[in-house]
């Protein structure tokens, strides 16, 4: 079964902590989407929080007809639009289609709201991460690239790399650990920990 759906079912069955995992999984993406509407980062966080609370309240009605993220994405967009309307600010005429929700990071309407500072930070991180990936052993680098850039499942990666799924899992884990070290160097050890 899909992990998100299983987490949703656990919340529906009374495991509130399972919702925390869903928040951690999608908070960054939801904030990013909302920033496309509400440009102020502090306001965007407030709207994101409201969106997650609305999602939690609506969760008993979630039947899994669509992916959890697509459902959450719609809630976030509506919350952002309502927020702007309530403050007499006009919401954007168009937004990213819900069907493209998983690929929206390429949407130009979201890119244009980046500040020079955030852009620079992102560029540094991106560069650092790519350098970390370049420095990995070939098998490990291939596994993480297939996962992060090609969006392949562990099963698909195992098929491509002709190795067991367990091996794929540990290669991706090792890659993340290496990237983590690189990021710590870029961000400094004091980074929100």
């Amino acid at each position: 079964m899909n992990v998100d759906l299983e987490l949703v079912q656990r919340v529906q069955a009374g495991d509130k902590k399972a919702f925390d995992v869903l928040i951690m999984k999608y908070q960054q993406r939801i904030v990013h989407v909302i920033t496309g509407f509400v440009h102020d980062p502090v306001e965007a966080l407030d709207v994101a929080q409201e969106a997650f609370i609305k999602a939690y309240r609506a969760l008993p009605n979630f039947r899994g007809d669509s992916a959890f993220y697509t459902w959450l994405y719609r809630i976030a967009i509506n919350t952002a639009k309502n927020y702007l309307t309530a403050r007499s600010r006009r919401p954007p005429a168009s937004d990213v289609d819900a069907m493209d929700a998983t690929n929206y990071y390429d949407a130009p309407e979201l890119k244009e709201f980046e500040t020079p500072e955030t852009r620079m930070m992102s560029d540094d991180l991106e560069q650092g991460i790519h350098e970390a990936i370049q420095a990995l052993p070939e098998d490990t680098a291939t596994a993480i690239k297939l996962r992060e850039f090609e969006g392949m499942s562990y099963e698909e990666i195992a098929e491509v790399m002709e190795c067991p799924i367990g091996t794929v899992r540990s290669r991706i884990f090792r890659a993340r650990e290496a990237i983590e070290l690189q990021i710590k160097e870029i961000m400094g050890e004091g980074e929100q920990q």
Partner: protein
Amino acid sequence: MTMNHNELLSALVDSELQGSELDQALQILAADELATAQFQRYQQTTDVLKGYGERGLSHNLASRISLALESEPVYSEQTTKHKAEVITLPTPFWKQMTGLAVAASLGALAVVGVMTQPQNDLLTNTPMAAIDAPAEMITVAQTGERWTVNEPEIENRLNSYLLDHNEQTGSSGVFSYARVVSYGAE
């Protein structure tokens, strides 16, 4: 927190855990704040790789939301089950109910239709049709303007069909085609 735990958390970021492993990962996250922080770091690395904004922007958001959700109710299987029962009744049941409803409506319409039809007409019109129609039809047949039926057997059969038709349409309220034929022939 062990390396094995971290590997589980890494797999959870990729939604690649199921069953007991997912249970285990959730238990680790619930019990160990360091594990939660580690999970968030893995998740953020993935987010950065995919271009979802800068790292650390919403790092405290999860705790903020969790805090805000503390006052929200904890759902139970009963709550969800009740809603599920209301929303997802089995389709065959609805199909059966719809079928029954349509059948009942049609039945009721038929009964009302028969009851509102003057009963005397059914009794009295039939003999009248039996008397009138053949006369007209015989005329039609005899004049030969429409049908050139010289065979008495066929002629009788056609007339009996027309009589039957007249009776049926008379009782159901449908305009009789046979009379049109008769008028046109005369």
